[in-house]
């Protein structure tokens, strides 16, 4: 069964505003997750410039031996990415769904400040539901 290892949200300036890991594989401490987030932000930017494809919107998938990294960037510049077991399916749908949850439970919370770290319990709860393995499979249908 394919598993999601961790989920990141980075704001348009490259700051990590949300990090969550699921299970033991690939667990990182705070410093490492911050480093990965800003590294990914820069790599994503560079990939847009280097791409031979016109109007390229940046890396969407990084495949490694031990993990896949799927990235989705909204038109407002916020990036959502998951690190998961190689070959995990339906991650595009999952990221899209996480974006919707973010607009519903984070941006609509009047006490959330834009571009700041996300601390919203409702978001955490609905996210936990979405990331459950069987739910991810449902999203693909």
């Amino acid at each position, binding site marked *: 069964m394919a598993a999601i290892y961790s989920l990141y949200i980075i704001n348009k300036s490259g700051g990590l505003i949300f990090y969550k890991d699921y299970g033991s594989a690939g667990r990182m401490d705070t410093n490492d997750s911050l480093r990965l987030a800003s590294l990914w932000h820069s790599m994503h930017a560079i990939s*847009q410039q280097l791409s031979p494809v016109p109007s390229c919107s940046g890396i969407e998938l990084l495949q490694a031996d031990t993990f896949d990294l799927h990235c989705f960037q909204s*038109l407002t510049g916020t990036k959502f990415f998951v690190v998961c077991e190689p070959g995990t399916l339906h991650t595009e749908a999952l990221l899209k769904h996480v974006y919707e949850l973010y607009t519903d439970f984070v*941006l609509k919370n009047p006490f959330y400040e834009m571009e700041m770290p996300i601390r919203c319990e409702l978001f955490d709860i609905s996210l936990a539901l979405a990331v459950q393995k069987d739910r991810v499979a449902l999203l693909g249908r």
Partner: protein
Amino acid sequence: MPPVAPRSGDAIFASVERVNAELFTLTYGAIVRQLLTDLEEVEEVNKQLDQMGYNIGIRLIDEFLAKSNVSRCVDFKETAEVIAKVGFKMFLGVTATVTNWDAEGTTCSLVLEDNPLVDFVELPDTCQGLYYCNVLSGVIRGALEMVSSYLNGRLGLSVDNLVSMKTEVTWIRDMLRGDDAFEMQVKLVKQVPEEYPYKDDE
């Protein structure tokens, strides 16, 4: 995975959660009344409504993008059409028409024949300078500032040409002032290059 097709304003409107229209209209009315009491000056109320709209717009844009699946617009004309046909429909339940384009394609008017915000409103003589729906212009200004478009008139849809849209939104016609429709003029004042304007070879 192929990109998901953009959804029509009607389809989104049918699927999102809605509130009672009167609750919405009366809540907005109460806010405007309270602002008038607190700020006293009509001009200040206009400014405050615009600022509130801006604060809403910068958040609302993400919900719009997440639920409508629209992709990046190729020019300001397409942007205006999307706001009028999908944006207004999704959040207000009405559609606007886009008219009065200037020659450069940077200024246009959004005309609302029907506006749920003003269902029961009659402006008293003391509030003649009030733009009752100024929150709407603020929303549009805020929302557009958060997204980037391709620089108008430039060939090649390259990321180098991506700019964020600064707009000015002003009311031209207002039914509360005796006009036959609501018309707001949206003017693209500045396109600010965003993200990575730094180049080594410059």
